[in-house]
């Protein structure tokens, strides 16, 4: 395989899963991705643990500078922790362990994504500016047989407790054809 690489298995994700089940209100705290216009995440719930601040720009020129990471006073890639991380210390432990074990030097977006049974993340490739800077990792918290993660012409079912790198710069999609929610932590790392 060229687009997927399993880097670990047997990670104990049950304490985090239990915490997520205990705190269902966290799913509704922010729905930025789900409501992104014509975005691929309409059927995805997200808990944002670490994400870019919303930057208000006044002109198209400023927007373009921001996309090129040249807008004075802003770092396009900087992702501060969100308050939700304080509700889920179990997630922080997993994320920091991933950083340590891979030798990453910078931590980007960290999200917990949930796709309901029958739900999809529609085919898309991540933005060039983002995918070229970051590497994308998935920590599988809950996933039953019937989940299909396609990237290019390859597909895998990522099992609970596994950690995967995948190539998010090319077209990918997810189908949750199981009878249970699919829950992954998504982590961006820079090396």
């Amino acid at each position, binding site marked *: 395989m060229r687009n997927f690489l399993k880097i670990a298995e047997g990670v104990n994700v049950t304490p985090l899963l239990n915490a997520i089940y205990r705190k269902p209100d966290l799913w509704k705290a922010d729905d930025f991705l789900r409501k992104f216009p014509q975005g691929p995440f309409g059927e995805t719930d997200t808990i944002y643990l670490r994400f870019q601040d919303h930057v208000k720009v006044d002109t198209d020129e400023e927007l373009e500078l921001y996309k090129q990471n040249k807008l004075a006073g802003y770092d396009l890639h900087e992702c501060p922790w969100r308050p939700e991380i304080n509700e889920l210390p179990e997630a922080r432990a997993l994320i920091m362990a991933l950083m340590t074990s891979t030798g990453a030097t910078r931590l980007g977006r960290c999200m917990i994504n949930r796709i309901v*049974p*029958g739900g999809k993340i529609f085919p898309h490739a991540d933005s060039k500016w983002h995918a070229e800077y970051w590497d994308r990792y998935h920590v599988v918290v809950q996933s*039953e*047989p*019937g*989940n*299909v993660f396609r990237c290019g*012409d*390859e*597909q*895998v*079912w990522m099992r609970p407790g596994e950690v995967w790198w995948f190539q998010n710069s090319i077209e990918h999609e997810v*189908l949750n*054809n*199981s*009878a*249970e929610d699919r829950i992954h932590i998504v982590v961006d790392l820079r090396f």
Partner: protein
Amino acid sequence: MLTFAIERFSDVYGELLPLLYEHYAEISTHKDHGVELEPQVGVYRARETDGSLMMVIGRETGQIAAYFVCFIAPGLHYASCLTCSPDIFYVRPDLRMGRTGIRMFKFVEAELRRRGVKRWAVGSKVEHDASALFRYLDFQPVETTYEKWL
């Protein structure tokens, strides 16, 4: 929604077993001769371990609705020819009138090509003829299997 994936024998066998019994009751000639279904689980596990067993599982809302099981290894007489040999395949009866079989075999073909398989053999039973499917998928008939019970 029906999706296909490569799954591991050790993960899926317990879930698959009831379907294997249904499959056996539908198509096996062994049952007509008093031979019970008795999969050699240890052999399947060994082939899973050595990488020669491939299982494609089709699921609908998590439930198994189709499967294709085969063995992949160099031909005994042709060491340079990676060969896919048939074991069993099954599609749930209510899904047989659509394109489920075609989709499953196309999924299998893509995976076999990815693995570098050169020759893919399949079997069609006289009482459960799948020839139309195989011809549609560009298989060529090359052999007829006979059996005699002793």
